[in-house]
């Protein structure tokens, strides 16, 4: 449904490489996530796929259509919700929706069933100007406008950024329902925990893809044993575990610390005796007790997407 082959894009005469040799495919009906922080190149990829920006090199198609040759056909068949609110601030909710329906040669009525669930939530305010809406309402209106012509592919650039946890959950539930309608969805987010909502994800950083897989596959590929360490004083624990000679990495994750130990590298731990990491793990608690943290606990855990992202950043 979407293919990218060796897409490159730079800005400022090549001084900023926004997208570096990116290739991936999205299958029909798939929900595919681009997961990465600001500056990863997410928006540039969206602009290229929605024919708003030309790549420096590489090929891409959407719905079997070439992004350069067939731009008109692509524009009329996809829906795009940009990261920045881009509707007409001085038109009302209803006028904006009407406008988008007309531009795409359809009517609100014709595809109402597709947007009904979402539109009903903002319909009581349909005479309010878009510029006067709250963030959550703007987001819902933008989604309605992107859907009104029943697109085959939906591009959503950071729809949940700056949105609270409750609204984020609701938004992903809405996307789940749209996926059931058969719409292919490419969605980006800086929130690692949202990866699990996607069929497949690409983890990206500074224009390059670190990994592409199902969320479960990315977790399975984590090559080390990961432990969670806890103690009454997490801050002190962090400092001490970082001092521990056997520590490979230690990062705070909520009320626990996620720790990997030396000698556990996928390459066999070059130079470290087999079982080095397990031994290092075993010796941590006694070591911490000596440092005044007798209540510390350690247990092996399954990594999350954020652990995997951090690991990929380091390697």
């Amino acid at each position, binding site marked *: 449904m979407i293919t990218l082959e060796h897409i490159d894009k730079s800005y400022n005469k090549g001084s900023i490489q926004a997208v570096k040799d990116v290739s991936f495919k999205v299958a029909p009906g798939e929900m595919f996530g681009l997961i990465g922080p600001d500056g990863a190149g997410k928006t540039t990829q969206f602009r290229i796929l929605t024919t708003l920006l030309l790549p420096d090199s590489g090929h891409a198609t959407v719905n079997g259509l070439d992004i350069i040759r067939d731009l008109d056909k692509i524009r009329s068949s996809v829906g795009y919700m940009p990261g920045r609110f881009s509707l007409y601030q001085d038109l009302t909710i209803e006028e904006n929706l009407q406008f988008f329906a007309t531009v795409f040669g359809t009517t609100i009525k014709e595809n109402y069933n597709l947007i009904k669930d979402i539109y009903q939530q903002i319909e009581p305010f349909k005479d309010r100007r878009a510029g006067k809406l709250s963030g959550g309402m703007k987001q819902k209106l933008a989604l309605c406008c992107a859907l009104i012509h029943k697109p085959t592919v939906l591009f959503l650039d950071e729809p949940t950024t*700056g949105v*609270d946890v409750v609204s984020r959950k609701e938004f992903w539930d809405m996307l789940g329902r749209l996926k059931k309608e058969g719409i292919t969805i490419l969605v980006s987010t*800086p929130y*690692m925990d949202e990866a699990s909502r996607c069929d497949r994800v690409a983890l990206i950083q500074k224009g390059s893809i670190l990994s592409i897989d199902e969320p479960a596959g990315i977790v399975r590929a984590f090559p080390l044993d990961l432990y969670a360490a806890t103690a009454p004083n997490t801050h002190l624990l962090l400092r001490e575990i970082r001092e521990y000679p056997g520590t490979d990495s230690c990062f705070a994750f909520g*009320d626990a610390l996620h720790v990997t130990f030396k000698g556990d590298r996928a390459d066999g731990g070059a130079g470290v005796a087999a079982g080095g990491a397990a031994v290092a793990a075993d010796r941590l608690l006694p070591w911490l007790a000596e440092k005044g943290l007798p209540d510390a606990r350690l247990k092996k855990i399954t990594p999350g997407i954020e652990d995997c992202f951090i690991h990929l950043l380091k390697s």
Partner: protein
Amino acid sequence: MPTVITTDKLTKRFGSFVAASELTFTVEKGEIFGFLGANGAGKTTAMRMLCGLLKPSSGNATIAGFDVYSETEKIKRNIGYMSQKFSLYDDLTVSENIRFYAGIYGMSLPAIREKTRVLLDELQLRNEAKTLVRELPLGWKQKLAFSVSIVHDPEIVFLDEPTGGVDPVTRRQFWDLIYSAADKGVTVFVTTHYMDEAEYCNRVSIMVDGVIAALDSPATLKKQFGGASMEDVFYELARNAKRKGD
């Protein structure tokens, strides 16, 4: 511990709409205080009152000992502020940014020179003093932005979603800075949408529909609301919010 923020029934009305209603809490010196809330709960309104930018409708508050009605200029001089959206000037160099902000806060030239030297050493940016900020890696930029926000040694620093959109490693490095500032006695008042970061705070307040719906340490809140994580606690409190959006 002395308190540096005290509010008593602090309220802001816009016409008939009560954006923030009877906020009452204290924040101690050196505390990391998480200020959470659903979109539209009234966080921004509350923050603006605490920073001396918005006059309350009723109630009282003192920030670093100064009154939010009559001493707003003194408040502004004695707090630091940083947000993801507004921090450094990209087209100024590292040392120009430091000089600019220190100058805004009325520091003398010799004091600015000394402070610049200390900061560049602390941040290990001495070789980058003449580099444009836009050319710095994000992690360094964040460190510099934070240091600049407390360049005038304020008692309190307000951080408004300082880590939004930042990669997971840089985000955690930023919290190292927060901890070390708090260790030095700076009070940190921080908002975030990352619920794991709520766990790093000494105490957390959660606003829903204009009121503080809960305020305690993360551990106590989790016990109180029967949640395994702060995300559960937040969800439990905010899911029935009537006000949505910003």
